[in-house]
């Protein structure tokens, strides 16, 4: 598990209100884990904790073997993150956006240029490098954010509802691409509320009201029925 993501006993409260309760989750390297939950389940809170925007008093998060509480910089250096909210600078070019992020991870000069070219190539966006980010459509903006999240070669890729607002074809393409990244060795945690983004072989954790109410491979959890039915049954039963 040294190269993957480990969460154990993680809880978080907003004042008196519990947002996450005793979360246990492991995503090994080379695995795509879908974190499926309805709106308000606690997915974004979990992502804020994983990226150290918040700090939890209870529980442990290990990223590629580094304890996020004790070695935050080493742990953050191994995370690539795509937030639900767009974080591109629309006034800058695609390349300049990538170089800015590379610099935040200590990469500059030729090394950063090469990495930017490499990740754009990987996302089939090399020809868009000099365009302002504003010119990109929603799908390409998301692709660019994924490219950016890969520029420092992270071990763990976190994506918080990355397909929100995209059309079906683009969602399919992006989901497929991130599955390929997992096949190539990344540990991927993909938060979503859309069951059609989960493949039967994916690791799946269903989050509802701050608790993981089911965990396993999607195929095992679904059984003979559909994932959507199972998801609705679990979240409605818990409600």
């Amino acid at each position, binding site marked *: 598990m040294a190269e993957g993501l480990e969460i154990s006993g993680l809880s978080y409260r*907003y*004042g008196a209100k519990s947002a996450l309760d005793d979360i246990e989750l492991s995503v090994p390297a080379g695995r795509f884990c879908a974190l499926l939950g309805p709106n308000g389940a606690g997915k*974004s*809170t979990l*992502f*804020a904790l994983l*990226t*150290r*925007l*918040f*700090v939890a008093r209870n529980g442990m998060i290990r990223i590629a073997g580094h304890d996020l509480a004790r070695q*935050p*910089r*080493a*742990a*953050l*250096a191994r*995370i690539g*993150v795509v*937030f639900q*909210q*767009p*974080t*591109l*600078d629309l*006034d*800058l070019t695609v390349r*300049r956006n990538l*170089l*800015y*992020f590379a*610099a*935040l*991870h*200590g*990469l*500059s000069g030729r090394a950063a240029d090469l990495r930017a070219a490499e990740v754009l190539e990987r996302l089939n966006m090399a020809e868009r490098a000099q365009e302002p980010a504003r010119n990109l459509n929603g799908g390409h903006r998301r692709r660019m954010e994924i490219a950016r999240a890969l520029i420092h070669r992270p071990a763990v890729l976190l994506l918080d509802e990355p397909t929100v607002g995209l059309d079906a074809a683009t969602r399919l393409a992006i989901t497929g691409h991130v599955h390929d990244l997992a096949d190539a060795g990344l540990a991927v945690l993909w938060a979503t509320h859309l069951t059609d983004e989960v493949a039967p072989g994916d690791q799946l954790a269903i989050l509802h009201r701050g608790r993981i109410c089911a965990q396993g491979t999607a195929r095992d959890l679904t059984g003979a029925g559909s994932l959507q039915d199972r998801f609705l049954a679990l979240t409605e039963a818990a409600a």
Partner: protein
Amino acid sequence: MSWLIALRAILHREALRFLGQRGRLVAALVRPLVWLFVFAAGFRAALGLSIIPPYQTYITYETYILPGLCGMICLFNGMQSSLSLVYDREMGSMRLLLTAPLPRWWLLLSKLAAGMLVSLLQVALFLGIAALWGLRAPAIGYLAVLPAAGLAGLMLGAMGLMLSSLIRQLENFAGVMNFVIFPMFFLSSALYPIWKMREANPALARLCEVNPFTHAVELIRFALYGQLNLPALGWTVLATALFSAAAVWGYDPARGVQNRRA
């Protein structure tokens, strides 16, 4: 090394954004220029100014408010760049910044330095336009004013950053204008000397004296004439340190912003 790479990237990004956004550049300059060319022209006759340091002769009202308007640029820019972080689009970029594998205080100081850089660019352009209009300071003043305006920009940026981290309900910029910017600007020596205010209302004059913006303006005013106003420097440095510490505290992931929903 990686710290400096990040600092340089944050400065570069802010400069590119500022220079790329023509509207922002024009708006930033129009505000003080309107004050200088319209407001000051109208008030010139109404306000008699005696000789006070650093001036050695009678001065026009335009000359008096020139440093105050430099302070105004730093005030608006510092607050705007920091407070824009709480709005959706910018909050995203702030999140990205804060997930960088560097100490958070360094990232926040880099952000402040970037805001200061933009303030300095605006102040330099504003003073250039004023000089073309005939409002000139000694040559040494143009050099000395840069660190003074830089420090003022840092202080006001830090104040904005502190507000953005500690105040949860900033509905819009207008609210900040009413409750922070206008009181700070009008309760200062930017538009009138404090002795004038004291004649009218001693209590308000006292407020002007404790307002850190007054000290920032006086620091700029003296620097513009090649002089160092030590008390003003001391108060401005102190306020910068306090506001910065509060901002770093506010952005500590275990404290300030933790109560804000993701």
